């Protein structure tokens, strides 16, 4: 808790110091960052990052550092695209009811992402290759795989010359729009804009709540949860009691991946609506931000939403900074990078003694 708070504070100071050297007033910068915490747009990121934070927490609890959230997130969109645009396209006479297609897309997405993550788990468990580089490399495999598909077989027909897939038919979309209202009172207007965001992303609200309850249930009541927790601190104990820790590692990664995939399919159906070309240039980087969310929560499931809120606000600070005319979007990266850096350093300094000898 203290470490997380301290990292946030020191990270902010470093950020202010860096942009200060370019002549930006610290006060202006901090005001913009503060404003990001209360913009309505923070709602979406908060919900998505909560789902992903919970997903990664499952793997992190077992000391499996799943940095592949990004790849698992996007690969999970593939079944959704195939089901909604090709197999069950309503224009070709939808054979099954829309909710079933949505359900299939979500289940298919979760399973595919689970398999993708399980692959990294298996490489770790059976070939003893560290999961961190493997999951990162696999993110790029997903980027290029999807690029290839969007560029080729899945290229849309009604895209006005843009290189991307067609848009998912609206019957399969999960967003829910409240009407635009003109409200003169600024406070009410602000509240209504939040309500519109929440309604629009109601599928994420359901998804994040499910993720939270599911993680709580797994760790509190199931044998798998107990094993995952113990694997994180002493896998030898499990081995000595006859638990196959290799299978457990694969299963844990699969579970984490399935949860990422669940979030990914919802994101496709609610927000994205199609796959763009050159995915790696267009992603929001949720898979990586979720790593930060899980870390900042100190792997305490009660703190995941709070930590997701902080990270979302920092991410949105990029926009508010731009709007304030203080610089470009790279600033978000400097900001988030500074927080992460301080966090890693403090954790390191707490766990190890550092001595300088000469």
């Amino acid at each position, binding site marked *: 808790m203290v470490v997380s708070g301290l990292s946030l504070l020191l990270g902010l100071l470093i950020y202010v110091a860096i942009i200060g050297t370019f002549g930006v007033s610290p006060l202006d910068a901090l005001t913009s960052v503060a404003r990001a915490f209360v913009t309505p747009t923070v709602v979406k990121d908060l919900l998505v990052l909560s789902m992903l934070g919970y997903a990664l927490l499952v793997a992190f609890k077992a000391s499996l550092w799943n940095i592949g959230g990004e790849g698992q997130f996007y690969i999970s969109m593939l079944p959704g695209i195939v089901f909604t645009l090709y197999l069950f396209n309503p224009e070709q006479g939808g054979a099954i009811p829309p909710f079933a297609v949505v359900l299939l897309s979500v289940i298919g997405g979760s399973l595919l992402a689970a398999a993708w993550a399980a692959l990294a788990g298996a490489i770790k468990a059976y070939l003893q290759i560290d999961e961190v580089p493997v999951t990162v490399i696999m993110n790029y495999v997903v980027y290029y795989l999807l690029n290839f598909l969007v560029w080729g077989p899945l290229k849309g027909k009604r895209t006005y010359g843009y290189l991307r897939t067609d848009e998912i038919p609206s019957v399969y979309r999960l967003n829910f729009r409240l009407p635009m209202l003109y409200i003169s009172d600024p406070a009410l207007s602000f509240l209504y804009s939040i309500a519109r965001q929440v309604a629009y992303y109601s599928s994420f609200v359901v998804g994040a709540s499910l993720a939270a309850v599911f993680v709580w249930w797994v760790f509190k009541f*199931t044998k798998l949860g107990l094993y995952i927790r113990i694997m994180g*601190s002493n896998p030898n104990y499990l081995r000595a*009691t006859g638990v196959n820790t290799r299978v457990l590692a694969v299963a844990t990664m699969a579970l984490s991946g399935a949860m990422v995939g669940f979030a990914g399919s919802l994101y496709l159906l609610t927000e994205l609506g199609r796959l763009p070309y050159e995915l790696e240039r267009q992603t929001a980087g949720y898979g990586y931000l979720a790593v930060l969310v899980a870390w900042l929560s100190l792997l305490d499931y009660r703190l995941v939403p709070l930590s997701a809120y902080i990270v979302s606000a920092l991410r949105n600070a990029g926009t508010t900074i731009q709007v304030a005319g203080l610089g470009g979007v790279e600033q978000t990266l400097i900001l988030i990078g500074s927080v992460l850096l301080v966090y890693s350093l403090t954790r390191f300094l707490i766990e190890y003694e550092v001595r300088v000898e000469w």
Partner: protein
Amino acid sequence: MHHDGRVAVSVKDLRKSFPGGVTALDGVSLDIHFGEILALLGENGSGKSTLVKVLYGIYAPDSGEVRVNIGGKLTRVLINEPIEAMHYGIVLVSQVPQLIDKLSVAENLAITLSSLKWKGATSLSGVSRVSSVIEKECERLGLKIDPNEKVYNLTYTLKQQVELLRALTIGARVLLLDEVLTYLPTREKKRFYDILLKLRKEGRSIVLITHKLPEAFEVSDRIAVMRNGKILGVVNAGEITLQEVRSMMFGAAVKLLINDKTPSRKAGKTLGGEEIVVEQLHVKDDYGRDAVRGVNLVVRKGEIVGIAGVAGNGQRELLEAVVGLRRPERGIVRIAGLDITKRGARLARSLGVSFIPDRPLEYGCSVDHSVLDNMAVPFSLTNGLLLRWGRLREIAEKVIGEYQVVAPGVDASLKSLSGGNIMKVVVSKEIESASRAIVAHNPTRALDEVSAAFVRQRIRSRAERDRLAVLMASEDLDEVLRMSDVVYVANSGRLYGPLDPESTPREEVEKLMVM
């Protein structure tokens, strides 16, 4: 009375409690004199280790003071970390040798010296300087240690001697020996005593932390008894009997020790079918050397088979192979008639075999988790996916009550318990969760006499009443002789036996151990 009356270290009214409400030290005052061997006795969780850790700078006391003799004057000090304790000449030698296996003896010592007083001790020339210091010290004390030997080649006894050497080379004036002698074979223990007496003569203070009473009587000048975080008394060793100290340590629980001495032997015992069968087993150790060389063994239902032997003679590898944790090179392990060789620990467990490992902290528990979580793993009571937490909690509460684990409750994290109490958790869950056989390595290590007696009683009763097969290796020869129906001796990877523990003279067994 050997000491000259000068106080080396004095503690006054030390208090220390841990989160969860365990009071480990409850106003401890004690003087340690130069030139004496002081035995610090107490049951598990009585506060011995905490006291020593405060002196060694591992724990900070909540209140109270520590004074150290500096230049003839007792000066109040704050010891924040071991390095500072070493500066004052206070050095701890623990039960588990704190050495790096892959380095040589000299390199290990050089690392400590470099962080303490010798700049550049870890350089090549530094290490050779350290080597010559080691050789000189060895000659003085009559030890045989090659400074260039890799630590993993050393026996347990030699590792302990290296630890002692390290303490001396960094200038220890007050040596805190935490259960160092407990697992040495009798002969080597006697040699260790000689060294301690020599060190005492040089005016050093030696604090011997032990739960083995005879050990305290054999060598110490004074005996301090701790209980519930208090020092009950400090007496001269000649002025009190072993029985009196025992009653002081354990109070009413001392009764249990009387039962411990009457083994129930084969008399009237009908042995059942073969539960564990080992044939021509060959197993390698972690360094690829042959640790078990052609062992044959049978354990029947209701039978306790004990393996005596000095540590490092293949016991660990043998037991690990029996429970499926280590792949044998050749040979067969059968449990309940089923060939489980090379089929992994899962199968052995599912057949109802539990395992008390030699390295309980590494293989027997997870200290970051609660007592309940740790117990839930081997008991593993489930309804489908769900653990039956309610039932598991009942079992855990019953077990920690029976084994008298000193803990605020079953939800307490294991690392908040004392070493002995962690061991009780490890041992109890394995003994109570077994349904066919118990394979145990040093099951009472780190337990005080009363707890050890209780554990032995439970193992015996599970063998007799529940007809479990028990295969037990212990470095404590008394324990093996007292408990077993059949005794084997492990030496250099082979088993000698079977011997009848009643008719075989102890000397003969010891001879087999060290031949």
